[in-house]
């Protein structure tokens, strides 16, 4: 698999180190255009946009192409972010992968599960990473932001934040930042039942980074991604501090709580199941977002001994 840090910032000495090229699919839409400006403002190197029917035009000085193959050919970008309505998502994503994109950030919510699964088969064949769908995106604070997160919540540092929820990723990162814990990467896996990058995938992507000092996992009810991650942490003998937060303890069963994936069937997907597996893996679980930095600080105290 491609190294996520290398994809996002490259290697020291390369001409485009920390200036990796990114293409925006759906750059002229309401959401896409707003967030293109915000990403550019953060320092992300947006080199092209794609909007069928608007090829040849420009948005804020950024050239627009008809298709992804044209955009990739012209720029050599390996990263793309998609802002198109869910109905058109699969087409846009396939277009991107076939053009050679290796990291695809899929923002749209409401993508049918079958479309996601179709895309993931192709991604596997093409050795591409999909983040999302229904993700806030991915960022290396103060280097690159590919997503819709508010910049003010994040600071550069050495903690990885892996989250199912968007707003909770902001909230928890904000709490970490306030407490002096900056982040080396923050990644939203997305709130859908099937995620291009699972919590385990995300953990494996970040765990060997030499800069990494600790990991914060922000989970929520639904599925068993947290449980399998906890088992994976036990199996891989990972020793750096990990702290978790799980949302949805008070949610009723069999009700979809805003995210397509946030639903409990019986005990499958329940908060109790997740908390008990994290406890087994010696990962403390915060009761509220503000408690995360305190638990992390506690873990660091122990880790030093």
């Amino acid at each position, binding site marked *: 698999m491609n190294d996520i840090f290398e994809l996002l910032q490259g290697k020291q000495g390369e001409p485009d180190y920390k200036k990796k090229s990114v293409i925006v699919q759906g750059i002229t839409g309401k959401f896409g255009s707003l967030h293109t400006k915000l990403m550019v403002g953060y320092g992300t190197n947006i080199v092209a946009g794609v909007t069928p029917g608007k090829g040849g035009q420009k948005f804020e000085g950024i050239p627009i192409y008809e298709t992804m193959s044209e955009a990739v050919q012209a720029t050599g970008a390996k990263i793309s972010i998609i802002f198109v309505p869910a109905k058109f998502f699969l087409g846009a994503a396939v277009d991107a992968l076939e053009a050679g994109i290796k990291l695809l950030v899929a923002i749209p919510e409401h993508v049918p599960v079958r479309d996601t699964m179709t895309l993931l088969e192709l991604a596997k064949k093409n050795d591409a990473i999909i983040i999302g769908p229904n993700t806030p995106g991915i960022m290396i604070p103060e280097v690159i932001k590919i997503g819709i997160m508010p910049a003010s*919540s994040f600071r550069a540092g050495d903690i990885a934040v892996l989250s199912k929820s*968007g*707003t909770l990723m902001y909230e928890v990162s904000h709490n970490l930042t306030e407490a002096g814990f900056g982040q080396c990467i923050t990644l939203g896996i997305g709130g859908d039942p099937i995620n291009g990058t699972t919590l385990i995938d995300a953990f494996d992507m970040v765990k060997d980074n030499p800069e990494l000092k600790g990991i914060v996992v922000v989970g*929520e009810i639904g599925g068993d991604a947290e449980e399998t991650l906890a088992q994976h942490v036990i199996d891989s003998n990972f020793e750096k501090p990990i702290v978790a937060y799980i949302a*949805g303890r008070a949610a009723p069963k*069999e009700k979809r709580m805003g995210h397509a994936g946030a639903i409990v069937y019986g005990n499958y997907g329940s908060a109790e199941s997740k908390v008990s597996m994290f406890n087994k893996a010696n990962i403390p679980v915060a*009761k509220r977002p503000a408690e995360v930095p305190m638990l992390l600080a506690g873990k660091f105290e122990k880790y030093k001994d």
Partner: protein
Amino acid sequence: MRLLEYQAKQLFSEYGIKIPKGITSKNIEQGRKDAKELGFPFVIKAQVPVGGRGKVGAIQKCNNADEFELKYPQILEMTVKGEKVRAILLEKMAEYKKELYLSLFLNRGKRCYTIIASAEGGVEIESVKNQVIREAGLGDVEKSVAEEVAKAIGLKDNTVNEFVDLVQRLSKLIVEKEAELAEINPVAILNDGSILALDGKIITDDNAGFRHRELAKFQERSELEEKAEKSGFTLVELDGNIAVVGNGAGLVMSTLDMLSDNGGKPACFLDVGGGATTESVYEALTLVSKMNKVKGILVNLYGGIVKTTTVASAFIKAYDDKLIDLPVFARLMGAESDKAKEMLKNTKTKLFDSVEAAINAAVIGVRK
């Protein structure tokens, strides 16, 4: 969308899965006609999108017209686990020798459909120890896989073929309708070895709804839920008296948890989506104003807000328009919060710097 039993059975029937004879009604006048057509005895089954009906008397046997007049209205008026009864299914009883469990569901971790079967049917599957779990790929379940499952739960003779046929039909249904779950509990094995679906539960992928217009007729939403969806919100109605409003599913769930931890009782989960604007907050207050029992509104907004002052003006407008007269306990994370506080000084909306402080004030506030 979770289909009601009679709706799931309608789909079963379309896919050639045998079901008992039954008729569905929403009032006693129609029910009487159905009873006459069906003939006594039969079972009266409440149609609600939750399990555990048997235990609370929402499924009852009915032997004659006197019983019918007593039980039909009683069951129609019931609330099961907070869900009002939507309709009544009158259904003929079947004589059978054995009950099984069968479900197919989308396994999120494994990214494929998975079969769960058991020789013990008619009880909640979580409580069953002898489950056979078999991954089944993304397309229709192959015959050999279904046969393995049939044998693993101890089926013999012609029942094996009947069961294989059932699994394949159910798998065709789940694939074609893009369902997340299709469950038959119990599957009855009749005296002649043939099979009948006595209950049914199907959950479809709402996001694929644009490809399945034929399922739209099954949509059972409250008026408020429908309004919420039109605004692009997600609303889950709950039993308490504090409405919980926020932006982002995770954040609202988190707020609900903290409120419950502090002894508060949420009246709803209302997610207005990632961004929060003056319009969306006003729209959310409009929805909350239509809910009964609400004594206070807890608002938690983070990110997506350009200025807290624009949100503050939504509250002021809601009071000015006499939309709400309720106290609002809000935590707004964004620029110019001091100015927003000043704007709201003489209103029933109080701004707090942390969500914990807003929750404490809300819990105390609604007790007054």
